[in-house]
């Protein structure tokens, strides 16, 4: 219903560099800060160090450590309830860690002084007073941050809401609210962007636009940390990923190295799955799983081996596909509910499914998924 159709004329990057031209407010800040000893280092680096957060009996995050470097887009992935939101909110000083700390530019968020000029945050798309016009909303925070009101129009233009600035936020679509959240995050012309599930509510064009935007933002040497529970949503955007599950880190590294063990996988549909499996076992290939459609997934053997074995065994082949152990599968395995992060370390830990449906997992925060609180 929104007037912004998510239409996108992106012929390349969409970040408007002119938005950085107006730096009158920055210059002033320079002068007053030169002689303060407790300055942050301006590195654009986010460091999570042994972060643990418990909400009552629920341990949302456990001993989590990772570093987010500037100049690239870092994806922060994990299933719902993995502790992503808790971690991001701890980084932004909204949640007080039970143990450990998160530093931005070397200091805690509350020590940044002008936090919104260093970090822009998009946490949930519900943080608006419905009766306020978008422009009024932005002016409120422009005043708090201490940037001139002209910045409001700049950020509205950047996110494509310029024509809708005088509408009440209550009439905005979810996608428009996401854009307005992003506009709010950009008000202080921050060096670091932290986004929690920014894709939710955006249409495919909006997601594509956001992807281009974040890449362009990071390409200028700035830092982007973006969380998602869907790998596909960020796979084309991020360079680096941190994957967590049940509050603990299960992977940190380049996305393209998240390829599993590199063993080939072959899916085969045959006339007699049992006979083929037996024949393969005779060849020393034992990692075989049956699939619901009556086929087999063979790990550790090439398509040639499988085909030859089938021929020798007299089994007809109806379909044979070589699969790369793809990112999505690897991600799903890492974030499977049964996956035990650091299981070897936690002797005596639960070995099966946690009792109850997935909702019983430490649900860090339902933020952004609650209905609007009217």
């Amino acid at each position: 219903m929104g007037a912004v159709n998510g239409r996108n004329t992106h012929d390349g990057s969409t970040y408007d560099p002119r938005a950085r031209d107006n730096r009158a407010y920055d210059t002033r800040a320079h002068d007053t800060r030169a002689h303060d000893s407790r300055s942050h280092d301006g590195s654009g680096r986010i460091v999570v160090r042994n972060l643990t957060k418990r909400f009552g009996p629920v341990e949302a995050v456990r001993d989590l450590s990772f570093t987010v470097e500037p100049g690239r887009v870092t994806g922060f992935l994990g299933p719902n309830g993995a502790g992503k939101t808790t971690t991001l909110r701890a980084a932004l000083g909204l949640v007080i860690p039970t143990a450990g700390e998160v530093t931005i530019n070397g200091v805690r968020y509350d020590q940044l002084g002008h936090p919104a000029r260093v970090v822009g945050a998009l946490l949930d798309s519900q943080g608006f007073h419905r009766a306020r016009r978008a422009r009024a909303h932005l002016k409120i925070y422009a005043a708090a941050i201490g940037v001139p009101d002209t910045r409001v129009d700049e950020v509205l233009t950047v996110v494509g809401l310029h024509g809708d600035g005088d509408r009440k936020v209550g009439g905005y679509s979810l996608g428009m609210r996401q854009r307005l959240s992003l506009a709010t995050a950009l008000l202080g012309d921050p060096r670091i962007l932290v986004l929690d599930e920014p894709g939710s509510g955006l249409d495919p064009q909006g997601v594509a636009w956001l992807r281009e935007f974040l890449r362009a933002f990071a390409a200028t040497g700035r830092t982007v940390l973006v969380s998602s529970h869907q790998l596909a949503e960020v796979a084309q955007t991020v360079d680096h990923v941190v994957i967590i599950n049940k509050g603990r880190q299960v992977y940190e590294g380049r996305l393209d190295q998240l390829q599993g063990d590199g063993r080939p996988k072959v899916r085969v549909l045959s006339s007699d799955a049992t006979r083929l499996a037996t024949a393969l076992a005779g060849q020393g290939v034992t990692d075989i799983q049956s699939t619901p459609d009556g086929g087999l997934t063979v790990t550790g053997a090439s398509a040639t081996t499988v085909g030859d074995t089938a021929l020798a065994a007299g089994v007809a082949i109806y379909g044979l596909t070589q699969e790369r152990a793809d990112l999505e599968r690897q991600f799903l395995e890492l974030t499977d509910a049964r996956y035990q992060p650091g299981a070897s370390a936690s002797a005596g830990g639960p070995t099966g499914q946690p009792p109850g449906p997935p909702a019983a997992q430490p649900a860090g925060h339902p933020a952004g998924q609650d209905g609007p609180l009217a």
Partner: protein
Amino acid sequence: MTSPQHPPNPPGPVNPIAPVSDYQHPDPTRADPNRPGADRPGTRPAGPEMLGQFVALLRSELRKTYSTAAWWALLIPAALLSLLVNLATGQGNGLAFSPGLGMALALGSFSSKLAVVYGVVCASSEFRHRTITTSFLTAPGRAQLIVAKAVVAGLVGAVYGAVSGIAGILGAMFAGGLSGGVPENLLAVCAVAVLTFALWGALGVGVATMMSSQLAAIVAVLVYLLLVEQVVSGLVSLGGWGQIESYMPGGAANTALTELASEGTLAGTLLGGGTTPWWLALLIFAGYAVLAVLAGAAIAQRRDVT
């Protein structure tokens, strides 16, 4: 502040993300924050800059205030109550009730409730609409934000006091109680009302910040003021432990007004006058308001914002 008639869609392409001419690759040399002196070395501000940041927060809170309807929506009943009560007391019994006491009753027992409700609403709406996250993120500290909010709610409260006072004077005039001009003590009551209403607004911010639930905070404040405080002070009085009313928040605020109104008047003498002078009551009430704001700020400081 905004032009409401702005067309939702400007002519030309239907809301492109940005005009095509704006689409440029960010110039790495220009936007590269790693180049010398490019990015702002951030520091924890001190001294004059902290003051500047507080002023920025005040501006932000003022903008929050006038961009929604709450401030005038609650001001209307405050003014109406004052007008009607003064009209009624002025007409009802001109001899027993001095205009000043009528005014003290109207402002203290009726209109002031809306000032405290305004304070509660303006703070708790941040939690209700979840704007508190952005407000905390853009403020140098949570305590500063709460204090700025209390100051601005205090300003709005002062406006409530002034407008309610003027409405009350009009009411008394219509009732024919002010034929001899506006008595001095009536004006004094109005002036002190501006102060107490300001404190009520700030106190409301403190209470709402402690509780964070809008409905709960409004109900708690009203139930306390209209019921709990009366019952407690009544029981204490019945038990022979003395008069504590003027030492409790609502009672202290009312005492400041009624004592001032009854000073040197026949009605005041007849009613026996309290033992607490108006200025002491006002100080006690100010203490409660400051306490509420500080407690709210302290609690906000420790609370997880989820």
